[in-house]
């Protein structure tokens, strides 16, 4: 068999032709259209029931959204479809045939391709190697041939990527393209995408949607896991809503609307709006002027950053992943070196200072880092010991004094309604929302002038998120200047006073939050420079 015909056969599978019987067996009418059927699925993790009696069916040629809050069990369900977990109860039918997956390998063989929210790529291997990794085939790798196959595949689907490029050098969008190529190369006809737009700009998301529609039109079944309502309404044909591990309902997208879906998702009527109280702003509590920071290999992490943060203001920071958000926070907090520029906090120069010397200034800065358990808290310690983290050495103490920390721990637990078996219970065993409350609680307790929060609602459900918004708004009313690094543009636009967009370590514009559009923000995020006049123009400096 020549190369050409081998390839042709390969693509027949890829194109998921409905009239072809891929499995070489006669299939019934339903089996032809019903690609995925999951019935009565239950899965237990320790004492937590992640899924209980879940039902889902997905047809060929449809885009099916799986909607639910964080922790509703969407990812667990899809991981069972991808062979990563085994269901405790229930059955899965693929193409009308009952299956039991013992490993992802089995699921791949059945035609299921999963694109995880956290990309499963090997950073230091080439794109081509990432694509063929785990594939059956000849013992020796014929890299030239593989390259050709990938190029042909990319042409068919209008995808573009350099097969020799390594993910470590890729943008987020490129990585996602690579993930899609990976599953297409395997000839998958059932695609599962976990929160595919979470890290994309609106423009990139649009492009992704057209790729997904293209796959649907080729007869694939596409499942999209998401918690974003607009996305569901925009792209899906049907929606299945999960709540607390159970199926709530499956509805036709055209027959639903945002409020209906939200109510299904949360279980009671919720007020979706995030409030932005009007607060009279004071002068700048934090000013950065021409701040630049370099990595060890001379790469610029932060490039000439200048802005003012006012008291009583929430300044949102938007940007695609790794645009310098983390570095900006750490530079202000004194955790990384700043080679050029000035940082001024209420008249104190912060450049060259360590977190401890900043703490001694008498002005207070609080920082809620992105990595809560790996940076903000000591995972295996209890709340009490975590309360001491920043002031255990006050007044040069040699011996620890746990008394004030205990009372503070008790105070925070009761004030913020933290669910914990006790104040000595290791924080890593608490739920995500409670962990965040412990961290935020400690940082607010020191009465800061400046509060830096990085992705404070990531992974939290709607109620927990609104709790955090309320806490931050209360701080804003107290005159605290808040830096809010976020990823959901809808939230940033509703919650912040101004939004600053970072791109590749540079500021690509600061706009008033009430006076911008998602498209404008997306353009700035992807590096399109906004006209000079607009750059600082719309900020309402009091």
């Amino acid at each position, binding site marked *: 068999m020549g190369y050409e015909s081998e390839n042709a056969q390969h693509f027949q599978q890829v194109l998921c032709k409905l009239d072809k019987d891929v499995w070489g067996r006669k299939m019934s009418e339903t089996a032809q259209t019903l690609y995925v059927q999951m019935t009565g699925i239950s899965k237990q*993790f*320790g004492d937590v029931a992640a899924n209980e009696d879940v039902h889902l069916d997905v047809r060929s040629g449809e885009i099916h959204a799986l909607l639910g809050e964080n922790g509703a069990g969407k990812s667990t369900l899809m991981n069972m479809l991808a062979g990563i977990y085994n269901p405790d109860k229930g059955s899965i039918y693929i193409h009308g045939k009952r299956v039991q997956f013992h*490993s992802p390998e089995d699921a*791949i*063989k059945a035609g299921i391709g999963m694109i995880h929210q956290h990309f*499963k790529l*090997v*950073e230091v291997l080439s794109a081509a190697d990432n694509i063929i*990794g*785990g594939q059956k085939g000849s013992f020796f790798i014929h890299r030239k041939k593989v390259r050709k196959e990938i190029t042909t595949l990319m042409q068919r689907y209008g995808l573009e990527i350099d097969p020799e490029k390594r993910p470590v050098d890729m943008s987020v969008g490129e990585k996602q393209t690579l993930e899609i190529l990976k599953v297409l190369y395997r000839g998958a006809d059932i695609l599962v995408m976990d929160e595919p737009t979470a890290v994309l700009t609106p423009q990139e998301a649009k492009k992704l949607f057209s790729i997904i529609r293209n796959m649907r039109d080729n007869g694939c079944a596409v499942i999209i896991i998401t918690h974003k309502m607009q996305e569901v309404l925009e792209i899906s044909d049907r929606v299945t809503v999960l709540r607390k591990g159970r199926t709530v309902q499956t509805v036709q997208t055209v027959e639903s609307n945002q409020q209906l879906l939200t109510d299904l998702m949360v279980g009671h009527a919720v007020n979706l709006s995030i409030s932005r109280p009007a607060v009279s702003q004071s002068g700048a509590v934090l000013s950065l002027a021409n701040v630049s920071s370099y990595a060890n290999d001379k790469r610029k992490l932060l490039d000439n950053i200048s802005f003012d943060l006012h008291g009583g203001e929430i300044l949102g920071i938007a940007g695609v992943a790794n645009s310098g958000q983390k570095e900006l926070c750490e530079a202000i907090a004194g955790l990384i070196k700043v080679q050029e520029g000035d940082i001024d906090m209420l008249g104190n120069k912060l450049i060259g200072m360590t977190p401890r010397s900043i703490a001694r200034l008498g002005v207070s800065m609080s920082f809620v880092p992105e990595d809560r358990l790996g940076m903000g808290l000591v995972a295996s310690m209890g709340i009490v010991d975590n309360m001491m983290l920043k002031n255990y050495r006050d007044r040069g103490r040699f011996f620890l004094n746990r008394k004030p920390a205990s009372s503070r721990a008790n105070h925070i637990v009761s004030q913020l309604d933290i669910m914990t078996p006790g104040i000595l219970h290791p924080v890593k065993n608490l739920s995500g929302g409670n962990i965040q409350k412990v961290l935020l609680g400690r940082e607010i307790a020191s009465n800061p002038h400046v509060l830096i929060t990085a992705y404070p609602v990531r992974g939290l459900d709607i109620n927990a998120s609104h709790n955090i918004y309320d806490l931050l708004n209360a701080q804003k009313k107290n005159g605290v200047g808040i830096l809010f690094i976020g990823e959901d543009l809808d939230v940033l636009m509703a919650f912040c006073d101004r939004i600053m967009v970072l791109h590749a370590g540079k500021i690509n514009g600061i706009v008033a939050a009430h006076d911008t559009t998602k498209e404008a923000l997306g353009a700035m995020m992807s590096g399109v420079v906004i006209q000079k006049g607009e750059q600082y123009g719309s900020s309402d400096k009091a």
Partner: protein
Amino acid sequence: MTISFLMDLLTAGVQVGTILLFATIGEILTEKSGNLNLGVEGMMLMGAVVGFTTSLATASVTASILAAMLAGAFGALIYAFLTISLRTNQTVTGLALTIFGTGFASFAGQNLMGLRVPENVNHFFEPVIVPGLSAIPFFGPVLFRQNLFVYLGYLLCIVFGIYLNHTRPGLNLSMVGENPAAADAAGISVSRYKYVHVVAGGALCGLSGAYLSLAYIPNWQENVSAGRGWIAVALVIFSAWSPYRALFSAFLFGTLEILGVRLQKFDIPISPYFFDAIPYLATILILILATLGKKKRHGTPAALGLAYFREER
């Protein structure tokens, strides 16, 4: 220093280096799968004592080598079961394996002290001259008038070099060591890859021990490996996980060790104990150099030392 001294030095260096080479390749295989096995010294000793005992009992070279490799593989299997299936701390488990292997070797070797391997086995390791290649000036005699073990070393380098860079299992292995979750999602059985390569690595450490006790030091002595297993672990870093570079670094270290021995013959007013310490001091030095140089050159498997468990929640 004359040319003949240098040639003699390098020839002996290649012989000693081969001990390190087997163990280094073994540990490269192990670490490529994301497992750091610090039990190399122990597995070498297990291979050495089992190989030696088998040679006394059977007088068969093949049986002795196979037995030694099995012994090394057995040690690695204990380690693999604990770290892969029971997810124990890799550093501590490796140390435990070294302690176990050391104890096992001195236990099994208590009645072997001073015994010699049978003549025919020893005879097997006499140099075999490769026609043609050995005629190359200078390098010919150094590299191609060697015993069969040395040639086996060359072969393994090439075989594993190709295996890691140009085959599907080699690529899959890299994925397992770099990002086991990605490998798992791609349908690669992470545990199976880890088990196979950790155990194969152990077999190579056993082979290294067999070479040591059958060919290099054919009289049994306590602790015959003398820390070479640890040096091999360091050489893995120095070789940046490449079997080809392992050949170079192992021979470099072999030569260094021999240099110490040879220089003692000259009347240099330096204590012989200093020369004995050279390999250890050199190991420290190259580790520092390798670490300093590593910032540009990648090689460390990203998931080295971490247990992988799919259903982590």
